[in-house]
């Protein structure tokens, strides 16, 4: 589990939730990699569907897109 940088807080708070207290997002990293179906629980990336662990760190995150992609 990693924490999302606080700079994303305002944007994420204004985007619709997928369910109570969580969003399913895509995360784009600074090196161009993209991870879909990322579960975000109030600022914490808790898991990525189909991926073991979370293979990046908070500082690698360039963009977060709310997709609700289950």
């Amino acid at each position: 589990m990693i924490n999302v940088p606080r700079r994303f807080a305002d944007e994420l708070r204004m985007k619709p939730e997928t369910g109570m207290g969580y969003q399913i997002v895509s995360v784009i990293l600074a090196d161009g990699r993209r991870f879909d179906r990322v579960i975000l629980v109030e600022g914490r990336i808790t898991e990525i569907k189909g991926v073991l662990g979370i293979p990046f760190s908070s500082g690698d995150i360039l963009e977060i897109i709310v997709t609700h992609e289950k």
Partner: protein
Amino acid sequence: MASIAEAYWSKGKPADAVIRALLMELLRPTTWQEVLSIAGSLLLEGDWLRQIPELARRFEGMALWESQKQALYLLDTFGDSLLVADPTGSGKTRLGAGLHLLLLLRLYALGQSDRTRTLIVTSPQVKPAWESEFGSLDANQPKVVSQGMLSRPDSGEGVTTADSLKGCRILFLDEAHNYLNHKSNRSTSLLGHGADHTILFTATPEDLRLQENQQRFLDTRIKAAAALAAWNIKAMLRSSRAALQSGIVGGVTGAEQGFLNSWAFGDMDHGLFHGSLQQDFEAAAKGAAAGFAAGFAEGAIFGFPESQVKAQATLDAKRQAFLAKFAPNAVNDTGYESLNAPNVDPASGSRISNAGGAFMLHSNDDPELGEMNFGLGATGGGPGDIGGETDGPILGGGGGADTIPEGMRISTLRVTQPGETFFRYESADSVFSRITATGGVTPGTFAAPTSDGFLPDVMRIPAYNLPSPWIPRSLGMLLEPPAWTPIIGPRPVMGGFGNEVIFPLGY
């Protein structure tokens, strides 16, 4: 810093008039053609589909028309059941196949492959067409049965059909207008279905008997377009949420009144799509668009018209008095649940009847009451009720919803009632909390109806099927939105045992 702020404040001048003039300029009444063209372009050319990449990918390679994509989008967005009422030859069967595929994909993604058993009930004439259309899909093949089997439960195939109804989790019901009579064997046999998703199809939703009874015509296609247009206008008015909310209420109410319609389907009125004869379409569109524009402007600028609120209160009082007269034991604090019918006044012939939870008033005494159908279900009533013709929900209707079995209802966009409250559970990270400084919530926030009760920590995750169960949702808050706040639900949580609501615009 304080002195700088004081200096700015001292030089400030009231800008209420300027802002009101600006809003008046932005929201000036316009022609119905212009409103329709905007709404149409938003649906047909807007980037809503691109904003949902998952859905866009699903449609790749599928030869769907725009209207069919819109229906899929609405199903995916607004609820789990749908009424599709498009003209003959408009591609309803193809749409049904697409809906089936969408539902299967969703259920598989949720790990609910055991909930994909599908039953299609259709007329014998078009049964081969359904079988052919679904057979072309690379997906589990549903069972297709003739609707005649529903009314013959004693026959061998009838028993099989009843069992299939009970065991299915997705039910497609073609020629849905054949089930308007709730007392027919065909209709009552449906009540035993076990579907989580019910998709109704019809090309002829109007019922002549209903028309004779001055039931009005509902064109929810335009209604949906108007609602979507209102949501897009949101961007123009982001700085004035109160104006927007009031505008939507006024606008949609205006559109509803402009339609001069209500429940063409009686208590089965919960559709999103309705295709009609061209002249009916144009007439409904003209009234709806003009009503929407005027209502939105009125609501956004002046707040929800007090005169309409008073008119509604007066009408409600008349209903109460009427019920008290004919069914004195039926009126209680929670509604009219115990009404036994019929009750007839021998002098005037006025009467009230109970159609299984949706009540029909027939007043020969009061022309304003006249003859109307209404219900007081969880989603019925409310400000959308202005004029006594539309019961509550903004999108899709739902008056008299008490008679609709669970699973046949869709989630409707409505507005909150005075005093309606909700619970919200979070993990207590204030930076990412969706609770605003004023005690409201941000757009798209989920909550639970207080009818679920205030759940202990350990029950919150399974009740609302929350991911990452090792993170406790230890913070529970009571939400008290203002009356008329746009809201979707309550609806059952997929995979959980609780119910959920969404505040699409926050408050």
